[in-house]
């Protein structure tokens, strides 16, 4: 007879303890990556300079500008976007009950991109009153709506009677992504030179051009999702049993689904609006965390935000230094690192997928 105490140590509580420990480690990691990120960049302002500045409490005028107007907003935006991508991935996977659901892969990113591109190209056609009303928020709002409509469509198509078909989800994602891409293509064709410049970075995703203005327009969408997503943890855990069973456990399924879809659309939409389509963070981060500390959303969502922020900052450092003084779009870096991991997940799950 195994004693209860021993089981508790060996089993779930142990995993809970590990997940809680993981949170602390990830906070440390994020701090370390943040400091490194502040000391990395094209302008010659290194970690040593920053260290000196902290000790001597002084920084040249030029370095102050670099720090406040370039490095810090870039750091803040990297954190915000990385956390948003990872959390929307985890939320979407919980909603679809499938570790392969990722806004970038199943077309939600494309939908959000379409919304953003429409706002940029066609925004000028809106009555002046509406344009002024939205101000700088027009692009993120349009991206949010685009992402929301796509997620709703995808859920309708891929889910029958509370069960999501993986094959249908992925194939519908391809179709929605292609549709979004085609319409974006038409709009790019129609765009003028100035708009074209605004659009070019959408293809690959980039944190270049990070500034406090962009952060101010994305944060109102992303921060609420990051802060409120832990409230959905119990519901998403129960949803792993299936919709009917989750309802029997007292979860208001329809409300949970609506909230999750809204949250995914808000976080994905805002990310896409300010940084284009950065792929694979949303699938790689939750997957790594599930392997190491389990699928419990109470920890998964928080840890995903932390690890997503760290990974995106790390990818951004690679993007900024590997072809310095030029800069690689960060979407290329995350795709190079993330796509093989995605394939690895597919191979590991072979036979379980029912494709």
């Amino acid at each position, binding site marked *: 007879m195994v004693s*209860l105490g021993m089981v508790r140590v060996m*089993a779930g509580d142990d995993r809970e303890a590990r997940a809680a420990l993981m949170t602390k480690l990830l906070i440390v990691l994020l701090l370390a990556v943040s400091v490194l990120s502040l000391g990395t960049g094209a302008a010659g302002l290194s970690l040593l300079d920053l260290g000196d500045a902290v000790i001597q409490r002084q920084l040249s005028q030029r370095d102050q500008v670099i720090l406040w107007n370039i490095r810090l907003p870039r750091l803040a935006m990297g954190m915000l976007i990385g956390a948003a991508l990872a959390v929307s991935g985890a939320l979407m996977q919980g909603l679809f*009950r499938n570790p392969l659901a990722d806004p970038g892969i199943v077309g939600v990113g494309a939908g959000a991109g379409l919304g953003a591109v429409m706002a940029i190209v066609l925004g000028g056609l809106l009555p002046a009153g509406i344009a002024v009303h939205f101000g700088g928020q027009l692009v993120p709002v349009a991206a949010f709506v685009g992402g929301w409509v796509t997620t709703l469509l995808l859920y309708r198509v891929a889910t029958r009677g509370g069960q999501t078909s993986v094959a249908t989800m992925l194939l519908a994602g391809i179709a929605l992504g292609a549709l979004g891409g085609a319409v974006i293509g038409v709009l790019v064709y129609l765009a003028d030179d100035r708009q074209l410049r605004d659009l070019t970075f959408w293809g690959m995703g980039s944190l270049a051009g990070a500034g406090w203005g962009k952060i101010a327009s994305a944060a109102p969408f992303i921060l609420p999702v990051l802060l409120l997503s832990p409230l959905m943890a119990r519901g998403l855990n129960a949803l792993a049993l299936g919709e009917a*069973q989750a*309802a*029997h*456990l007292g979860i*208001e399924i329809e409300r949970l689904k609506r909230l999750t879809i809204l949250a995914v659309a808000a976080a994905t939409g805002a990310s896409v609006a300010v940084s284009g389509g950065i792929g694979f963070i949303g699938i790689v981060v939750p997957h790594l965390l599930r392997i190491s500390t389990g*699928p419990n959303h109470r920890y998964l969502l928080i840890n995903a935000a932390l690890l997503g922020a760290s990974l995106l900052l790390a990818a951004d450092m690679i993007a900024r230094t590997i072809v310095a003084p030029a800069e690689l779009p960060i979407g290329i870096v995350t795709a190079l690192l993330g796509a093989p991991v995605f394939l690895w997940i597919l191979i590991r799950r072979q036979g379980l997928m029912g494709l």
Partner: protein
Amino acid sequence: MLIVEDVSVALGRRPVLRDVSLTARPGTLTAIVGPNGSGKTTLMRAMTGEVACQGKISLNGLDVARAKAWQLAGIRAVMAQETQLAFPFTVLEVIQLGLSMGQHAENRDLPQRALAEVDLLQYASRNYQDLSGGERQRVQLARALVQVWNPVADGAARWLFLDEPVASLDLGHQLQVMRLARRFADAGGGVIAVMHDLNLSAMFADRLALLSKGSLVAAGTPEAVLTDAQLSSAYGCPIRTNALPASGTWLLPQAVAG
């Protein structure tokens, strides 16, 4: 008290249940029996609010069709025929899903006690997805037990709805699970179980409801329901029941040639 009044269910245009009326009292175990496709699981789903139906179903005075999910979750737990899990939760984590918000703080050892009840204590840290069908069923039963741990709470009975709880279990665990259900009923709770095994139903249930082609054809004590004529007609083959000499209630239905 569970009251089912004139309940009909149609899936698409095909009627699956027709005018079923049934009551179950707290402190009893009711087995719903009948051949394949007779509507047993559909009736169960209607009673748990999973499928919409015509007619009226109330549980402890709560209209099942209108009640909120959390209201129902407070008075009844449901164990489905089969539960696939989307992610690799451990056995203990699955059972913890049965804990409600309020329970979590005060009853942290409930999941372990429920696991011990179904003889799976040493499985606590195993991945649910790696278990056999029978083991998964016992884990799900433990989860349901955790949800309604006290058969009577706040002066009202709580209910267990079990859809074929012993279908994929070996003989020993079939008896174990039925004894658990029996004890829950004896302690004042209500148990509704969809059953395939007429012998186990006769042994453990207070009342049987026999469904055939979507209609309730007999309801009452095992002796009243498990008659040669009723079984033969419902199952569409000649069946003879024999009472074991040692116990008046244990019936052995036998298909006979001809």
